[in-house]
């Protein structure tokens, strides 16, 4: 199905223009001529100031949003909007996207259900995934009966149970407190280490990006966002996200990338203040 050696995900020359509501002439260009490649088994983080169009880029990769121009290739195959979403990708959203009317287990097996997996088999697999994300015994709870961290684990299980080749994550842990967040980051790394999916991880937190990734891509401030820096993170794995933050290699990288990012953050801030 896939072309040999092609990268897991290749965004080429992507531009996203949004028509503004009131005036037709003032289209908002969220992303301009952005190219990004994710190798197989590579964990890539994309960082950038707030409101720079990170999520837009991710939605394009997911096939949820059709770019105004440019192409998306998934394992060498062109992703066409007419064919629907990116079938080989799993998407973890920033906001809660669990079905509130389904129990924990019901949410986890939703994807299997959509694919027509027999219910008994789906539930068995679902229980296994609940255990893996540390929610064993919580399958009969509804999302509103769970804490924010538990809901994130549930969302992670919901996505990973389908074993997607590409994992798209949109600031998945941004709503969590620092401690829970570091726990979740470690768990994500452990799960990822089992079968090394290709990951595109969006965040505004540079530390999180470096701690998790093989590569960190810095985006410019919007509008017209595009990658302006690409840094390889060759810190040893397995990593502990709370410990690795203290190592000199980490701090050097952080300083180097922040040097590029800082200017963009200030630009974005200045623009927000004007608006």
């Amino acid at each position: 199905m896939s072309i040999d050696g092609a990268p897991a995900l290749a965004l080429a020359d992507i531009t996203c223009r949004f028509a503004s509501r009131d005036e037709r002439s003032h289209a908002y260009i969220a992303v301009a001529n952005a190219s990004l490649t994710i190798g197989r088994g590579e964990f890539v983080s994309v960082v950038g100031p707030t409101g720079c169009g990170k999520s837009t880029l991710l939605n394009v990769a997911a096939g949820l949003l059709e770019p105004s121009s440019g192409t998306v290739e998934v394992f060498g195959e062109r992703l066409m909007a007419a064919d629907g979403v990116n079938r080989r990708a799993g998407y973890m959203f920033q906001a809660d996207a669990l079905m509130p009317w389904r129990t924990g287990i019901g949410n986890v097996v939703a994807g299997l259900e959509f694919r027509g997996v027999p219910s008994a088999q789906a539930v068995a697999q679902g229980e296994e995934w609940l255990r893996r994300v540390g929610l064993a015994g919580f399958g009969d709870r509804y999302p509103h009966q769970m804490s924010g961290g538990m809901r994130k684990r549930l969302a992670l299980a919901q996505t990973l149970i389908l074993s997607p080749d590409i994992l798209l994550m949109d600031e998945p842990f941004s709503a969590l407190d620092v401690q829970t967040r570091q726990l979740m980051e470690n768990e994500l790394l452990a799960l990822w280490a089992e079968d090394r999916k290709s990951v595109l991880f969006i965040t505004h937190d540079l530390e999180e990006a470096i701690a998790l990734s093989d590569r960190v891509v810095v985006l410019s401030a919007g509008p017209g966002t595009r990658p302006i820096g690409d840094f390889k993170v060759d810190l040893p794995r397995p990593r502990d996200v709370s410990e690795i933050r203290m190592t000199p290699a980490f701090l050097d990288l952080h300083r180097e990338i922040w040097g590029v990012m800082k200017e963009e953050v200030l630009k974005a801030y200045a623009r927000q203040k004007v608006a």
Partner: protein
Amino acid sequence: MRLRILQLLVLGLLVVAWYVLTAPGLIPPFYFEQDNRAAFFFGEPQKVFWVIVEWFATGEIFIHLAVTLLETALGFAIGSALGLGIGLWLALSPTASAVMDPYIKGFNSMPRVVLAPIFAVWFGLGIWSKVALGVTLVFFVVFFNVYQGVREVSPNLIANARMLGASPRQLLRSIYLPSAMSWVFASLHNAVGLAFVGAVVGEYLGSARGVGYLILQAEGTFDINTVFAGILVLTAFALLLDAAVGSVERRLMTWQPRTSETEKV
């Protein structure tokens, strides 16, 4: 418990006041010229009570109650089904929604009780004209709630389901329908109440059976005690229906952190 006692006390006071003010010769007449006029216009509680007892003792009331409840149930079921179907359709199809918008608004603004005589002509004096009236009342409550429910589904939820591989059909079943249903349940009390109103008003305007018919008959002979008896039986059953809906709602909506309320129609 104390609350219950106070509530019963209020009921007792009302009945006593009713009795004292209407019993002929108990207190000197202060508004009507004659002693028995108050009883003629307002009935007497003990007589009302005996009418109700007799209805249930002879079983005369059961056929009428059954008819009224059947009309309520049918009006509710058909109105809800139509509201759900058309609500889903219009909410998911922006063009159809835009085209139908003025008509929906028009029908909703129309005082639909005036349709009752027309329904009597179309569907006869049997149960179906009452069901039709109930349907027109229930439909809009359910329709607007479903429409709202589908429109308010979080885009995240839809995107997530799509990424999990849901087809449009599965999206409808697993996302839109449950979301709409939660709004429908929020309006269930209203809908059942309106179906009941439709049935009784329909009967009142022309019928051969039903509690509304009993009231109409009694009114024709100035039997005010029977009219009040009918009203009390209707009220009791409306309360029972409401309680039944409440228990169904609690069972079906366990996933909701709190019951959401919609505005009264």
